[in-house]
């Protein structure tokens, strides 16, 4: 592979693991650093499992698989802990993102790094959910009245809670985008069409998983973690196809985002796609890593960072938000 040592090296390896036979020591070193920086070392390790790689690399990848497995166990237990507490409320507790993938045994979950436990519950149940979690040993992470009011008024989730014994965070969402975003996905439909994994634990339908991944990527952040997010998209499509996806995306007001996610995932990991100029800019930003795992192309990054704030909050609100932050120093 005569590739530059950037995010494309990781993408190309995930698409075609056999291509690694051509990698030399420097490229392997870069690939591992980039995969770690994108939090995809476990995914890479599973993708290369069984292939002949240099002994040192085999060693590192085996450790990464073991580490991902331990992460999977911990994530599933955290979901189980939440399930036990929330089952008596009789509301749907929908697992999101990585935990949902591993709980449902999806390809996207294989080797995936999983951080906090993200769940979606009906907005009307938010207070009851919060009370039940507090009763069962979860505590507020930061007792800051401004941040708290901000979260409650404008965000799509409760302020994060952490369990006092297990030291694990839970994010309780009632929809998949902040209320300040211009797009308002149909949260009721997300819940209504969820799939029960085991009594009391649900996952989004495959098309809603795709809609969520797209929303998360383009409307709810600065594209950080984008390569992993698009790998999720790629795996979900490979497993479930795209039947009914266009209609569902339209229902959530996410047609543009879902369309772009499909094109970018195909460009990175699949058969390629007809790209718009904006798509190319996104790809440039998504793959902006050097062989040391460092984020490169800072100007592209900054543009996206500002953009993500604007998307989330109408302008006056952003000014107020920043002002409060500045005042606090």
């Amino acid at each position, binding site marked *: 592979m005569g590739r530059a040592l950037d995010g494309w090296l990781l993408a190309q390896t995930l698409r075609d693991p056999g291509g690694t036979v051509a990698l030399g020591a420097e490229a392997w070193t870069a690939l591992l650093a980039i995969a770690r920086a994108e939090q995809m070392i476990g995914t890479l390790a599973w993708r290369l499992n069984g292939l002949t790689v240099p002994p040192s690399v085999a060693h590192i990848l085996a450790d990464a698989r073991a580490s991902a497995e*331990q992460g999977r*166990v*911990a994530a*599933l*237990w955290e979901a*189980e*802990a939440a399930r*036990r507490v929330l089952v008596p409320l009789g509301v749907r507790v929908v697992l999101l993102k990585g935990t949902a993938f591993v709980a449902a045994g999806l390809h996207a979950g294989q080797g995936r790094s999983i951080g906090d436990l993200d769940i979606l519950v009906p907005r009307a149940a938010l207070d009851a959910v919060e009370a039940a979690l507090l009763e069962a040993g979860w505590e507020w992470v930061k007792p800051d009245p401004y941040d708290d009011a901000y979260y409650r008024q404008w965000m799509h989730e409760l302020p994060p809670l952490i369990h006092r014994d*297990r030291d694990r965070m839970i994010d309780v969402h009632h929809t998949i985008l902040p209320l300040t975003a211009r797009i308002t996905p149909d949260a009721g439909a997300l819940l209504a069409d969820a799939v029960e994994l085991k009594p009391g634990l649900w996952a989004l339908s495959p098309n809603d998983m795709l809609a969520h991944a797209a929303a998360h990527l383009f409307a709810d952040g600065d594209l950080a973690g984008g390569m992993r997010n698009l790998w999720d998209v790629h795996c979900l499509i490979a497993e479930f196809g795209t039947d009914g996806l266009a209609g569902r995306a339209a229902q959530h007001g996410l047609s543009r985002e879902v369309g772009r996610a499909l094109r970018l995932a195909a460009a990175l990991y699949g058969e390629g796609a007809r790209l718009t100029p904006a798509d190319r800019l996104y790809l440039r930003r998504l793959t902006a890593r050097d062989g040391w795992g460092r984020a490169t192309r800072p100007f592209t990054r900054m543009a996206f960072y500002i953009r993500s704030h604007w998307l989330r909050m109408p302008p006056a609100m952003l000014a107020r938000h920043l002002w409060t932050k500045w005042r606090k120093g």
Partner: protein
Amino acid sequence: MDDSRGDIVYRMARPETLKITHLDSFTAVFHRASGITHLVTSPVPEILAALGEAGMRRVDLMARLSVDYLLGDADEAALDARLDELVAAGLVAVA
């Protein structure tokens, strides 16, 4: 709440889900489903042994413990609390 618990049958988590090692007066229990290590001491190992895989109700557990281990002074409230902790930790299952 206490009344409704009377008929609940508690049993030890399936043996293949636990790894148990004795370290002098303590017992280290590795719980595979959570990846969490519990370092426990009396009466927890006794409770786990008494419940076994068959399991039993709370009153029967109390009776068994007082016969087998002379834990006669263990009051019911304390036992309830231990049982709840063990259930939360996954070491004891509600049948």
